[in-house]
């Protein structure tokens, strides 16, 4: 196991959002994180990605403790994430965003900003176009400001940014929410594709069951801040407890 989270607990005021959550993910594995609204899925992702600081627990990545590190440090350690809602970054182009993502890569960090000033980045541009934007069908809009793109494409840009860092652990927060089912399936394809190419571990929070079922290797179900079930997609679908909690069946 490369990601091992144990006993992760975080409270907001008196409300316990995540309680003693545990999760393990191996490289190359796509784990789906599902559960009803308010189950603590995104909060858990936020803890792993450094946005929130849990009160207790450990999250180890290849043996290193991740808790307490800032998102920028995590990104440099190979942990990237996407967001539920795409940010309104009007002025930047698709390529700009991808470059920002790539800036966390180790090979891009030597020399610092002063060197950047005089360094051509056309090689990087080519690489990003071929490796990241092309598969995401963003190459044709690479030089457009993202405000001109549709919602679906903006979500793809957000994913492109995370992928440009060539992450080893990718945290996806509802990657297909708000997309048409066609776009959603395409996105799911991309995620699998990326996993195959980079061999990275993926945790995916998602509500759309068809996407989850067809994409994930394993599924973890959360409710009220805790893990209530873990198993293969087929097992999850078959479990009565999950059906009761999550699908509202008696």
């Amino acid at each position: 196991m490369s990601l091992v989270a144990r006993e992760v607990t975080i409270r907001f005021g008196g409300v316990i959002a995540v309680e003693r959550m545990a999760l393990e993910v191996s490289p190359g594995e796509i784990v789906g994180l599902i559960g009803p609204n308010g189950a603590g899925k995104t909060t858990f992702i936020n803890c792993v990605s450094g946005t929130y600081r849990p009160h207790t627990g450990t999250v180890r990545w290849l043996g290193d403790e991740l808790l307490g590190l800032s998102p920028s440090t995590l990104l440099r350690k190979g942990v990237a994430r996407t967001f539920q809602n795409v940010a309104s970054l009007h002025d930047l182009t698709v390529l700009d965003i991808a470059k920002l993502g790539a800036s966390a890569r180790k090979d891009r960090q030597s020399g610092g900003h002063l060197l950047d000033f005089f360094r051509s980045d056309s090689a990087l541009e080519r690489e990003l176009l071929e490796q990241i934007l092309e598969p995401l069908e963003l190459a044709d809009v690479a030089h457009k400001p993202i405000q001109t793109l549709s919602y679906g494409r903006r979500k793809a840009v957000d994913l492109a940014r995370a992928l440009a860092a060539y992450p080893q652990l990718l945290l996806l927060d509802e990657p297909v929410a708000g997309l048409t089912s066609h776009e959603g399936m395409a996105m799911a394809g991309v995620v699998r594709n990326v996993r195959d190419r980079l061999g990275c571990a993926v945790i995916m929070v998602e509500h759309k069951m068809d996407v989850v079922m067809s994409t994930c290797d394993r599924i973890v179900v959360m409710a009220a801040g805790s893990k209530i079930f873990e198993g293969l997609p087929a097992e999850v679908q078959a479990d009565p407890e999950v059906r009761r909690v999550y699908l509202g069946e008696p």
Partner: protein
Amino acid sequence: MNTRHLVIAVAVALLMGALSLAFGRFGAYMVNAVAIAGIGALSLNLLIGYGGQISFAQGALLGVGAYTAGNISNAGGDGLLAILGAGVMGAIISALIGIPALRLRGLYFAIATLAAQAILEYLFKILDPITNGVSGLVIRPTTILGIPMTSDRSLVVPSLVILVIVWVAVSRLMRIDLGRSFLVLRESEIVAKGMGIDVAHAKILAFFASGFIAGLAGALAGFANRLASPEAFTLDLSADYIAMIIIGGLGTWTGPLIGAAFVVLLPEAIQRVGEAAGLSDILSPLRELAFGLLIILFLIFEPRGLTALLSRLKPRSLAVPAPGAVPATGESLPP
């Protein structure tokens, strides 16, 4: 490097140089004033327009530059060394001012910069050994690379050269990761953080870069006036610079220079027109009135500034969409 920006910047500088030759010493003085204001406005635009950090301490930062350059030059240092020294000192002080920005945001930080301005102004007045107190530091004519800068005309050259360098450098800055992270920072710190941008690092660097440029402008202003006086670097000056970048167009590439030219030349234009119209007696208040009204009208009716206005007048303009060109909604400006 964006060659188009470089070509435009050099062309503008050559034009300004030609104007300074055509209109005598006063013309040279005004061209110099525009160039210096342009450099200062570029620096503030970097901070506010691109980085989203509102600062009312720009006037004092120019002062830091002027005093530093004056002291270095008076001690026998070459003018170029003095200018660079002023940049470094401006950068350091600016970064210090920026430290509270790591904890404070938006309005609170803006008010904190008011305090920075007030405290720096006070220091100018009492730190006699460095600033010569309220009397102001008289700056003897400097030499740049051995060439004496005794006249207003000779000073136009370094000012324009620095203007071009700064202008192009800012354009380049917005095309590297650091500049891009400024833009993200401007939109939302939370997003920036989530995207893995080191917010504190980026913020301090924004202040550092902006302060460096402000220091250069201050040094040039000191050389032009041959005096660094606390009266010259007040909150009014800070407000003037904010007016420049807003009137020119916040977060645009050409805006700062257009705004600077406008704010520097407008009072003089009103003055001359008013004199010709026989309004000498109430000209000063009229100038103020026009300035204030223009700020208000611009903000209400053309919040994207002269840049937008001019490009609308001339659809096929030279308007270069800056990396951070402000969108039509105006919502992407700093909160």
